């Protein structure tokens, strides 16, 4: 029974993520078109809704080209690592409160482990292998540069990411993500929801910036930087393998948004929802929808940033990471600890 419940949860989450990637790509293209005063894809299906399906079919049908001097096994391995990492991170994120169904209480979280945040940090730190190996195994100087940049960038920003979370951990006193969300369902001064964005604004901003860098999105997309590196680490990839990198990028975006929502925006908590007087099941559904809604808002912000900001230069990226973000997050952790000690 437990195994059945667990596999149902995995299937539902994976299906939801894959479908949302399809729509996310379309939303991104339509939104970028709006920002740049274009029309965007609107020919395939009503309002262009089937555009992504057509793209997937195209990627599947394309010939898989591997450069002659490439390291074939590693060239195949790199996209698999990327997609595996993107798929496994979501496992510890609670997407709703415990739900009562057919007499059993089901936690809306795939894996309830007491090292939740450390698990996320450990898995995201592996994402760099996919990019680095793709860059090296292609045997192309642009790919190699992209791979080198990605390893330097992701190691640098992982530090600020981990240190930013320390403030949240100190407030919650645990690494379990479900407890962290539960702590945020209280109210400050009787009316303000006790979300960590209000309690830990510095941590929120630094974590959000680091999340952009970890997902390789503009303004931190140095590993693929089209104008200077052709395509960066995925220059030599075509067809399905390119598709996997593409899928991994968007799944990482969704997961990063989910982590931001869980840690800082109250997770599935809808303020004042208990005033609606809903029964158990309806309330749980509402909470899951709240969680999804918050993720969508963060994703729209991700997309808006991508199409409105220019790319950083490499030295700017490094000095921002090491000289601004790292001291800021360290100071935040110290101040949080001092305040907690004083009160």
């Amino acid at each position, binding site marked *: 029974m437990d195994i059945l419940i667990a596999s149902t949860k995995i299937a539902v989450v994976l299906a939801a993520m894959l479908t949302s990637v399809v729509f996310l790509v379309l939303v991104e293209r339509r939104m970028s078109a709006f920002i740049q005063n274009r029309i965007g894809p609107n020919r395939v299906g009503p309002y262009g809704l089937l555009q992504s399906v057509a793209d997937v079919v195209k990627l599947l049908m394309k010939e898989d080209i591997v450069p002659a001097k490439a390291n074939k096994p590693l060239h195949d391995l790199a996209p698999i690592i990327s997609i595996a990492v993107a798929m496994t991170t979501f496992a510890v994120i609670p997407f709703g409160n415990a739900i009562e169904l057919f007499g059993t209480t089901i936690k809306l979280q795939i894996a309830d482990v007491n090292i939740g945040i450390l698990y996320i940090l450990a898995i995201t730190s592996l994402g760099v292998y996919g990019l680095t190996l793709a860059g*090296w195994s292609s045997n192309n100087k642009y790919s190699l540069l992209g791979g*080198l940049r990605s390893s330097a960038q992701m190691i640098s920003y992982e530090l600020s990411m981990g240190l930013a979370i320390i403030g949240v951990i100190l407030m919650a006193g645990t*690494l379990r993500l479900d407890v962290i969300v539960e702590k945020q369902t209280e109210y400050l001064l009787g009316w303000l929801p006790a979300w960590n964005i209000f309690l830990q604004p510095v941590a929120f901003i630094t974590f959000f910036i680091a999340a952009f860098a970890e997902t390789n999105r503009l303004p931190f997309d140095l590993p693929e930087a089209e104008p200077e590196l052709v395509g960066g680490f995925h220059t030599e990839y075509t067809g399905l393998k390119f598709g996997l990198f593409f899928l991994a990028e968007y799944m990482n975006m969704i997961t990063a948004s989910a982590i931001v929502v869980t840690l800082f925006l109250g997770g599935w908590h809808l303020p004042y929802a208990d005033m609606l007087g809903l029964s158990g099941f309806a309330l749980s559904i509402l909470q899951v929808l709240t969680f999804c809604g918050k993720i969508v808002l963060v994703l729209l912000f991700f997309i808006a940033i991508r199409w409105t900001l220019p790319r950083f230069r490499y030295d700017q990226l490094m000095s921002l990471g090491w000289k601004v973000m790292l001291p800021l997050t360290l100071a935040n952790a110290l101040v949080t600890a001092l305040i907690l000690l004083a009160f």
Partner: protein
Amino acid sequence: MTLQAVLFYLLAAVSIASAIMVITRRNPVTSALFLVLNFFSLGGLYLTLHAQFIAVIQILVYAGAIMVLFLFVIMLLNLGDSQSLREVISLRKLAGVGLSTAFLLEIIYILGFRVSDFPAGEVTRGLEIGTVEYIGQKLFTDYLFPFEITSILLLAAIVGAVVMAKRKLD
């Protein structure tokens, strides 16, 4: 067989196979990746011993940071296939392998004939002592001094690495 036994034999096989691959591959990048696999199987073995914190730190520090550094250096120096060294079998190396085998036999003799007293029985308090809370509490009380010394060690390592890797000293 219990779940622990199944996991142990599986992970043990993976870790030994990957360790052999590390020292036999020509290409340093392949070696490094097999070492990452080895670290993963070790992380799994730590989980069978209920050492959750150590298992996650193993992945985070070894696989996520140290091995990325290795790969970074291998790529930076471009030590791929073209640069792979010619390894020759010499008498000295055979002697090395012989000595290592003797060493292995010695350890297995000690284990097999119970020359000393090993703790028998099952993993008893493992579940409780492997958690982040317990380790954190011990780390900041009983092991505070070594923990603080570690920071000096890391500072020295940072300075040393920067000085060594710098292109030219002014």
